[in-house]
């Protein structure tokens, strides 16, 4: 049970959704876009989210697109992680999505909700960071397209009332060698101790992380160190100098243990990717 009441809206177009958001905001209803709604419901129950109006985006056609369009693979923000996993048009994204929560919960959790949510793992963003994907966001001034690396810094920096509509990934990235490894403290579902996603791009290996810090990130400094000449172990140690500090230290695992797992996992991923001569 939630301790507050909200109105429920289901707009059918981007314009309607955005205008609604601003009208409800002027009425001080603290509106929220509602995608899978799982975070709004679960954190709302704990009074960690509050709203008097939710705007369900699942009837907006642009938010439900999944497939290639003019050189890009387009992922609608309102798609469930299961839908993405089963489509498998972007294998790295399918792999990252399939590690989130559990199979049934993924029938409800959406990619847009995962990326915009408060729960800081946001594992579904890693493939988009690695592939320099574009963000399509809609606001009162219309729709804008931006590179994710310029908009994602710990969280997705949308303007107030902006709706994440889609993510666009260049097709050339869909078939590059990749790895996505999620290490949990125990069991086969749940939050990560460390999740590492990596691709082998033309210029070298790219890496992005969740669970290491209280935000997901891709570090160009770490990539530079990892792509130098030298033994893998030394390159990893050099790259760790650029890790955002402090490393998470919580019930999922101590920072020392996280670093230990991170080093070993990164070692395996680098070795495999460097041997992958596709």
């Amino acid at each position: 049970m939630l301790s507050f009441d909200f109105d429920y809206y289901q707009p059918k177009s981007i314009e309607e959704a955005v205008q609604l958001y601003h009208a409800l905001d002027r009425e001080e209803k603290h509106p929220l876009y509602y995608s899978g709604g799982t975070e709004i419901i679960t954190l709302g129950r704990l009074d960690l989210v509050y709203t008097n109006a939710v705007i369900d985006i699942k009837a907006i056609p642009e938010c439900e697109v999944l497939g290639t369009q003019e050189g890009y693979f387009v992922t609608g923000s309102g798609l469930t992680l299961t839908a993405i996993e089963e489509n498998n048009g972007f294998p790295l994204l399918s792999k990252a999505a399939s590690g989130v929560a559990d199979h049934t919960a993924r029938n409800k959790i959406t990619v847009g909700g995962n990326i915009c949510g408060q729960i800081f793992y946001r594992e579904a963003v890693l493939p988009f960071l690695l592939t320099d994907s574009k963000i399509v966001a809609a606001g009162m001034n219309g729709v804008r397209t931006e590179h994710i690396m310029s908009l994602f810094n710990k969280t997705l920096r949308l303007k107030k009332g902006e709706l994440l509509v889609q993510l666009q990934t260049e097709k050339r990235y869909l078939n590059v060698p990749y790895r996505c490894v999620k290490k949990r403290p125990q069991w086969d579902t749940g939050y990560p101790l460390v999740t590492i996603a990596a691709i082998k791009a033309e210029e070298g290996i790219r890496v992005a992380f969740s669970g290491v810090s209280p935000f997901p990130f891709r570090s160009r400094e770490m990539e530079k160190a990892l792509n130098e000449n030298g033994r893998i172990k030394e390159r990893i140690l050099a790259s760790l100098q650029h890790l955002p500090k402090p490393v998470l230290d919580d019930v999922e695992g101590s920072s020392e243990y996280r670093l230990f797992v991170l080093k070993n996992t990164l070692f395996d991923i680098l070795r495999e990717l460097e041997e992958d001569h596709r």
Partner: protein
Amino acid sequence: MTAERSLSAVLNVNDEERAVHLKPTDTLLFVLREKLGLSGAKPGCLNGDCGACTVNIDGLAMKSCLMLAVESLNKKITTIEGLKGTPIQQAFVEHFAFQCGYCTPGFIMNCHAMLNTVPDANDDTIAEWLNSNICRCTGYQEIEGAVRSIVKKNQMNRKRP
């Protein structure tokens, strides 16, 4: 577009049209249990972790504590009360796949959705789907055994000319 603080709705539950008065904040789990008297879906964690509240929505397994009842309008809701004598129910009995039974409706609804979607699920698929539910008193082996027995039957039926 609609804005409703409280609405009269008709939900399609177990192939019946059920009229109900609900608030947009009501979860489907709450409406099923408290307003429709269908107490088969169980409240456990209310946080999406345990799977005790699992129902089927248009054939998909869904944790009803993670869904608002308004989201289920115009969808086909199936709860454990809507399953009558299905092979997986029988298999749970034959394989002693429960003790206290609290988690059982959720497990059965998840297995039912899986067997309809992937009738010849392999062990990895079974493990992946079953990981969505938690049982606190019986072993998972019996539950897996029950599911595998149906998969085996499905495979044998397919082989028959």
